[in-house]
């Protein structure tokens, strides 16, 4: 079967730096931290990690109530990001309802805040008499994908991958495969999540959340740094509009990048701790899928969340596969870890880096952990032409996902 070439023609983002791709890229390029001490976390008994990064000032009121009533914050973030992507791609009004546009957007779980509100009442009153009809639509696992499709009038396929921290990367990967195989011509794809103490607690209780920087939130997380102490949770959404190169050329669409390859594998060595061999395998498979040799990769956007085990495993895998000369950086030091959104947000930023010819360094990386020293870390902005990048994301549950993206070359 002949596979179609797939390109990115639009991007949208809602991040802890605010609304829109310019806010995301501007915050990252200027080296800002979005991490703050969150008063809400201080009220939770037993929680040691009190920091996080939240999306500022987005209420989604511009989304008509008919659509917004079934949205929790994560769906609002996803819808605004999708609208931005569609607008940037200058997609004609008749495409969403034409059946050739699909949606592939996932989250870690349905809205934890809505779930909490429902069960608080349910357990206390043993009653569903005050349950609103819209509650389920915010709690269901495909809430973001379904709400985006409804709000934008998308009638094609709906896919809602859920693989925690690898969700965003997987969602884009599966969208790429759907277009490459000819099942759809266009896909709105990405990830979204909303912050909740449940997420922070999950990492905290397995000693994988940052707990020593509660009074210096901007100094954490610290990917690859000797003094790193874990994940900082955040929230947001990013959405990319992917389409077949044929479709993009036919409608003279702006092309931001080309998707060259994707792979996802299951790491069965441990459900919580990543294994470098499985990380390497996933990267190898993505390169193979792309038809790209390791020495063609100009930059790696690492998953690197600032955990001891994860950063070491990823460093070792990159070093073994790509050697020690390819620039590597992580964006978690700026943004925290936005879970299902992270892969897509970081992909948007990586494409922006490729366009600008500028690599964003790993924020808070001051003293490289010796066990992470086999790769070339980017510690300050580097002006550099980038043609081909590798994007990594790995998740609790043993889910690895890697994407190869590159500059679009019409002569290829």
């Amino acid at each position, binding site marked *: 079967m002949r596979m179609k070439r797939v390109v990115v023609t639009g991007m949208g983002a809602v991040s802890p730096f605010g609304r829109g791709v310019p806010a995301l890229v501007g915050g990252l390029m200027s080296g800002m931290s979005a991490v703050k001490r969150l008063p809400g976390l201080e009220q939770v008994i037993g929680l040691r990690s009190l920091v996080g990064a939240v999306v500022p000032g987005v209420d989604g009121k511009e989304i008509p*109530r*008919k659509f917004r*009533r079934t949205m929790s914050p994560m769906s609002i973030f996803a819808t605004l990001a999708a609208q931005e992507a569609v607008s940037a791609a200058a997609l004609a009004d008749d495409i969403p309802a034409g059946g050739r546009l699909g949606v592939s957007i996932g989250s870690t779980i349905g809205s934890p805040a809505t779930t909490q509100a429902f069960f608080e009442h349910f357990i206390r009153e043993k009653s569903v*008499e*005050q*349950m*609103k*009809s*819209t509650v389920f639509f915010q709690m269901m696992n495909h809430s973001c994908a379904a709400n985006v499709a409804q709000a934008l009038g998308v009638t094609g396929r709906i896919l809602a991958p859920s693989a925690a921290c690898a969700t965003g990367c997987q969602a884009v990967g599966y969208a790429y495969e759907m277009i490459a195989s000819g099942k759809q011509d266009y896909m709105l794809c990405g990830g979204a999540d909303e912050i909740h103490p449940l997420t922070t607690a999950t990492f905290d209780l397995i000693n994988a959340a940052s707990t020593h920087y509660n009074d210096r939130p901007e100094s954490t997380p610290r990917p690859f740094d000797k003094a790193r102490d874990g994940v900082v949770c955040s929230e947001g959404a990013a959405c990319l509009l992917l389409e077949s190169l044929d479709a993009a050329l036919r409608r003279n669409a702006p092309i931001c990048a080309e998707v060259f390859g994707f792979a996802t594998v299951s790491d069965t060595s441990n459900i919580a701790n990543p294994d470098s061999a499985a990380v390497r395998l996933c990267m190898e498979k993505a390169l193979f899928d792309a038809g790209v040799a390791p020495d063609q990769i100009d930059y790696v956007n690492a998953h690197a969340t600032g955990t001891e085990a994860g950063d070491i495993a990823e460093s070792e895998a990159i070093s073994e596969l790509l050697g020690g000369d390819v620039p590597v950086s992580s964006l978690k030091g700026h943004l925290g870890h936005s879970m299902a959104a992270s892969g897509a947000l970081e992909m948007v930023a990586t494409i922006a880096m490729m366009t600008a010819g500028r690599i964003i360094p790993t924020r808070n990386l001051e003293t490289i952990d010796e066990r992470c020293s086999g790769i070339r870390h980017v510690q300050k902005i580097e002006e550099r032409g980038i043609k081909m990048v590798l994007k990594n994301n790995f998740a609790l549950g043993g889910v690895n996902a890697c994407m190869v993206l590159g500059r679009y070359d019409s002569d290829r």
Partner: protein
Amino acid sequence: MTDSEIIRLIDTSLAEEFELDQATLTPDAHIYEDLGLDSLDMVDMVVVLEKAFHFKIREEEAIREIRTLGDIHEFVLSKKREMGA
């Protein structure tokens, strides 16, 4: 509560829940066509009214006959009278 107070509470409750413009809340306003509500909203309208007036109306047959805001006013006024009787 007087009848006009009841009607005012109905209108403000529905306006808040469904983000309706007070100017559109005339008794002859059709719930679906003029106010833009749908079947999910009708489910939530019951919850809103039950909370506002401390009664149970989910199983009332008469709810299914409601078409206009005026019908809601009449239904609630009738229910309140029934409760006071």
